[in-house]
């Protein structure tokens, strides 16, 4: 729609309440004390308020149907007469004078449509779109049913009045038409109310927030209408009661709804002010960790998450660098991707009810864009660090697996075959002795002896590659076993229980390396090994009474050990000074 067309349309719409007010207020001119013009308010205010609020809404968001619906309701209230209000509007009275029965006909058929539009508005607020199929069905049905039932009512009533033949049937038909109409309206009213209540309960926090003003305005309306109209039935014969006055004044409460809408609009202007606050916070410097809470509070969605796109890794990650997947299209979470969709910077994941306020989300996102880009660098570093950490853990685990495999191959292959060969040689020797072949028996004896030595060496080798006792019995027996083979005195204390194999391996190799180093370099006499487990950490602590001087930086096996412990998320401390020997302390998280 072009600008001038829109302006013309707005002028015409605006002319309607102006005209109605003029016509109505003329009756009160000149004003008298008995009939103050104020009592015309209940006729004029609701319709005018809806029309004006609708115009404001429409010019604010032309694509949103809320504005048009409110304009329709407003004009309907001003022009029409309604079974709910049970009184003709002032303009209707005037038009009846001018147009006569044609206007009455028009009013009966179309005069109640504004009520359907009101239900439509309640079900579609604030997006202007009807959500469920049931919502759409009910509204469409009512838009069709109200004029049709009105038409039927007109036809049967006219038939009766014109005294057509078969008067009895016509009277019954008329009764039937009115009763059916009343029942259908009642059912639709109940269903509509239920749908509104359901909408409130399934709505997310942001949508409730925007629905609130309109939904809460229903409360005074319902409170004023219900008793007032009940009173109409029960006090129909009373000439004037308080309830009747209230019933006459009850339409006034309808004006609460457009007023509520204007309040909501003011509040979203205030939301834009909160974006200004956000910008101020940003200029003072926001840490990456503070971005998400700041956005969540600006957009009034505590569940809001910021996820960062990592181009080098090809996935989204949270602030800690952990991979995050975006919610699916039909999930209750909505996503706004920031930056070029082919190469985004980050994405906001929030409650889908915030979709109604897409402008607010976009503005907030634009405000934090630069800060998000900075934060992303940090997230990317974290994610890459995490990747490296994981790949190191995988490498260590792979190496451990390989050690186990080699040890098993040695065991099932060479060791087993050599022992079997040992048996064969024994049998051969027995045969030689039976034949009194002392020379062969002698040769076989020598072979048996060298084979026995080979087996002993192979056993040492296999043990060095991977100590089976570690898998069979755990860390403590494996360290005790180390101590039993050690030429220095080794005292083992503490208790640790069974741990994950990778943790047992990490701590075992620390102990093994520390003991080997102590034997080689410490010139001490005693080694104390203490294992322990407390508050989610398993530890091994090795102390010797030697000369000290061990240094991680001098590139001994200690560096490898430190890496190995770090690979399972643990840490290794080495303390070594000339007087007090060397102490190694390794601890790993064991959950």
């Amino acid at each position, binding site marked *: 729609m072009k600008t001038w067309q829109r302006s013309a349309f707005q002028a015409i719409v605006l002319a309607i309440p102006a005209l109605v007010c003029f016509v109505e207020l003329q009756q009160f001119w000149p004003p008298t004390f008995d009939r103050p013009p104020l009592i015309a308010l209940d006729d004029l205010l609701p319709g005018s308020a809806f029309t004006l609020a609708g115009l404001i809404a429409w010019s604010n968001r032309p694509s949103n149907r809320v504005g048009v619906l409110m304009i329709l309701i407003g004009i309907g209230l001003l022009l029409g007469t309604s079974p709910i209000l049970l009184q003709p509007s002032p303009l209707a009275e005037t038009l009846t004078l001018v147009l006569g029965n044609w206007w009455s006909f028009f009013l009966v058929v179309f005069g109640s449509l504004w009520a359907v539009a009101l239900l439509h508005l309640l079900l579609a607020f604030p997006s202007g779109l009807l959500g469920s199929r049931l919502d759409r069905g009910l509204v469409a049905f009512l838009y069709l049913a109200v004029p049709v039932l009105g038409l039927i009512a007109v036809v049967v009533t006219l038939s009766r009045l014109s005294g057509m033949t078969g008067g009895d049937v016509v009277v019954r038909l008329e009764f039937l038409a009115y009763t059916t109409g009343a029942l259908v309206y009642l059912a639709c009213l109940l269903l509509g109310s239920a749908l509104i209540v359901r909408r409130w309960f399934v709505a997310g926090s942001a949508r409730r927030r925007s629905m609130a003003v309109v939904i809460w305005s229903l409360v005074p309306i319902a409170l004023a209408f219900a008793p007032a109209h009940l009173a109409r039935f029960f006090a129909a014969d009373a000439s004037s009661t308080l309830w009747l006055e209230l019933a006459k004044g009850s339409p006034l409460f309808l004006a609460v709804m457009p007023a509520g809408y204007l309040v909501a609009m003011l509040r979203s202007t205030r939301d834009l002010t909160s974006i200004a606050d956000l910008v101020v916070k940003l200029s003072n410097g926001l840490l990456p960790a503070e971005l998400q809470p700041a956005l969540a509070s600006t957009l009034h969605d505590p569940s809001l998450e910021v996820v960062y796109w990592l181009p080098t890794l090809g996935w989204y990650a949270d602030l800690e660098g952990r991979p995050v997947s975006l919610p699916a299209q039909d999930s209750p979470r909505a996503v706004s991707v920031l930056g070029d969709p082919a190469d985004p910077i980050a994405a906001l994941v929030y409650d889908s009810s915030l979709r109604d306020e897409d402008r607010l989300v976009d503005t907030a996102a634009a405000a934090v864009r630069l800060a998000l880009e900075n934060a992303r660098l940090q997230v990317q570093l974290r994610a890459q660090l995490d990747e490296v950490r994981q790949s190191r853990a995988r490498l260590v685990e792979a190496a451990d697996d390989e050690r186990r495999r080699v040890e098993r191959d040695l065991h099932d292959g060479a060791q087993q075959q050599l022992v079997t060969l040992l048996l064969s040689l024994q049998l051969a020797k*027995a045969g030689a002795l039976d034949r009194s072949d002392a020379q062969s028996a002698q040769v076989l004896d020598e072979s*048996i002896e060298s084979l026995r030595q080979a087996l002993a060496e192979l056993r040492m080798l296999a043990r060095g590659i991977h100590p089976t006792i570690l898998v069979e019995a755990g860390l403590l027996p494996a360290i005790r*076993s180390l101590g039993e083979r050690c030429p220095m005195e080794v005292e083992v204390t503490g208790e640790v229980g069974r741990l994950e194999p990778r943790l047992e391996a990490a701590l075992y190799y620390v102990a093994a390396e520390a003991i080997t180093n102590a034997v080689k370099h410490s010139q001490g006499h005693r080694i104390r090994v203490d294992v322990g487990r407390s508050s989610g950490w398993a530890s091994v602590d090795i102390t010797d009474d030697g000369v000290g001087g061990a240094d991680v930086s001098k590139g001994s096996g200690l560096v490898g050990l430190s890496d190995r412990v770090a690979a399972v998320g643990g840490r290794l401390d080495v303390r070594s000074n000339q007087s007090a020997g060397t102490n190694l302390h390794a601890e790993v998280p064991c959950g």
Partner: protein
Amino acid sequence: MRVILADDSVLFREGLARVLEAAGFEIAGQAGNVEELDRLLAAENAELVILDIRMPPTQTDEGLVAAKRIRHQRPQVAVLLLSHHVESHHAIDLLSQGTDRVGYLLKDRVSDLHEFVEAVRRVGMGGSAVDPMVVSQLLGRKRARNLVDDLSEREKSVLAKMAEGLSNDAIATALRISPKTLEAHIGAIYSKLGLEPGGSEHRRVLAVLNYLRSA
């Protein structure tokens, strides 16, 4: 004596069977895994089971688990566990359940057939056999206050044989000393180490091993 052999290597089983048959044992059956072993145990009236510590499916300590179970379920059956390497932890674990009818030896002990067959027979007859390597490792352990060092060489040999599970007669024969002299050595060992004297020849194995391991 009826013996069941359990080891996943057929060649080793066959070789062992021939060696034992030559030494006068009767082979009641051979098993390649624990299920076969259980079937044989139920079907055959065996007095002794010789089994490998590693068996399918995981090739870790199925044999050890099976040995402990057999000793619990069929206490009348003697169990000799063989392994490519020995650990004092396993030895004490096995003996803690009872020191009679049990043995734990390196597989390479078949390099000395006479000693090996003696150990098998000892276990089958109700005694115990602990691999000399376990004993020598424990005996050689460095200690803060080493009472073992106070023992004479001869006494150390006697202590080692005691820890291996040999009876007094067997020790006397092995070391070529008279039973009287042996009694004197044993008395000296007990007093020097501060061990409670007494206990049967079987029972003392665990006491000595525990002493050597923890002192």
